[in-house]
């Protein structure tokens, strides 16, 4: 997981318990943090590496979050911006679970509809619902299609 630099030291140190998100699309690490609700004021101990060399991706980002294991909804959100990402759950320095991310067919409460006139952007008791199509995300309420900048609309 961690990569040694030329001086022999670890570029990113191992964590004892928590989650390592590897193979994030290069440049998307900060968006991954935003999705996880991690800001400067949160308490998580965090390591971020960006533009790390990767055999598979050329360049990749890595995020390590200590003492937090990601749930399915969080993984779904990450899949939208980093479909190649790998989630490693770490306990006592060992990888106890390793899973890829998979974009679900329908996203509920994950993405905000960009259409200001959509009923999901009101006080109605309803979650935004998008079906995932090849051409983008399709709002099942107002038929809006999000093609680009999906990260901007992730709740």
């Amino acid at each position, binding site marked *: 997981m961690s990569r040694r630099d030329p001086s022999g030291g670890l570029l990113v140190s191992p964590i004892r318990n928590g989650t390592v998100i590897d193979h994030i699309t290069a440049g998307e690490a900060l968006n991954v943090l935003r999705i996880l609700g991690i800001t400067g004021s949160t308490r998580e101990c965090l390591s971020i590496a960006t533009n790390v060399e990767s055999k598979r991706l050329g360049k990749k980002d890595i995020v390590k979050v200590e003492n937090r294991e990601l749930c399915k909804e969080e993984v779904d959100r990450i899949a939208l911006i980093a479909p190649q990402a790998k989630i490693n759950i770490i306990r006592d320095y060992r990888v106890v679970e390793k899973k890829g991310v998979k974009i679900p067919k329908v996203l509920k409460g994950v993405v905000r509809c960009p259409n200001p*006139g959509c*009923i999901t952007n009101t*006080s109605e008791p*309803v979650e935004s619902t998008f079906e995932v199509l090849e*051409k983008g995300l399709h709002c*099942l*309420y*107002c038929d809006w*299609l999000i093609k680009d900048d999906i990260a901007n609309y992730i709740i």
Partner: protein
Amino acid sequence: MYHVISIRDFERSDLDYLLDRAREFDTGGYRPRMLEDKLAALLFFEPSTRTRMSFATAMARLGGRWISVDSVEASSIVKGETLADTIRVMSSYADAIVLRHPKEGAARLASEFASVPVINAGDGAGQHPSQTLLDLYTIRQSMPIDGANVGLLGDLRYGRTAHSLALALSLYGVTLHTIAPGGLEMPANITLELRERGTEVIEHADVEEVIRDLDVLYVTRIQRERFPDSASYYNVASSYRITPDLLAGVKEHMMILHPLPRAGEIDPAVDRTPHARYFEQARNGVPVRMALLHEVMK
């Protein structure tokens, strides 16, 4: 339960079936009291004349009754009640709900909270399926829809009737010609969807260059509020006005449709030509809505 929310939910066979049923209602092939013990809730949270009145007329013609909310101001929405709660309550009063609402997706939401069928009577700039059915019905009265050359003229960006109709027509192998002022063109995602459905969509800058090839010209209102000032509105609106002179040389059977109300897009002198079919179109709202109401409550 049978909801009528979006034209996207319909197959060609569904549309043909409803158009056939509307034809039966139109020619008197029904019992006058078919919905005698039924009550429809007409919830109109946006202004409407033809749609609301034709749903009420359709209920009356079938021997049914209706209750109605005619504005947001007259309802508990002003007290902050959600549409979801309103729909739950109305479901316990009526056998079907007809909803017009300013927000897109409102009818879809209503169908999730209703325990009775919901008919979408227009949701914001979204869908208006009963209007589309009566548009199709009016075309089919005069010619086969299949293979027709249909022009869509006017505000194709915000005009929900044009979106719904275009999607429905894509099931009939038509060629669509779109003519819209700059900034009011058909949204790219709808044009893309139409092309994915195999429909040829041809964009034109000017109605004159295409009008002689058309079988149907569907005109929609250019809304004044979309323009920064009156001068720019009048400038655009006048260049999209249908006049008797413009109709010289058009096909004999070419019909002009308009969902109404019109605001100067069609010169009243056009009303006297055989091409003007918009009042007949408005009249067709009744048999089409009779077919819909009967279908969801039978």
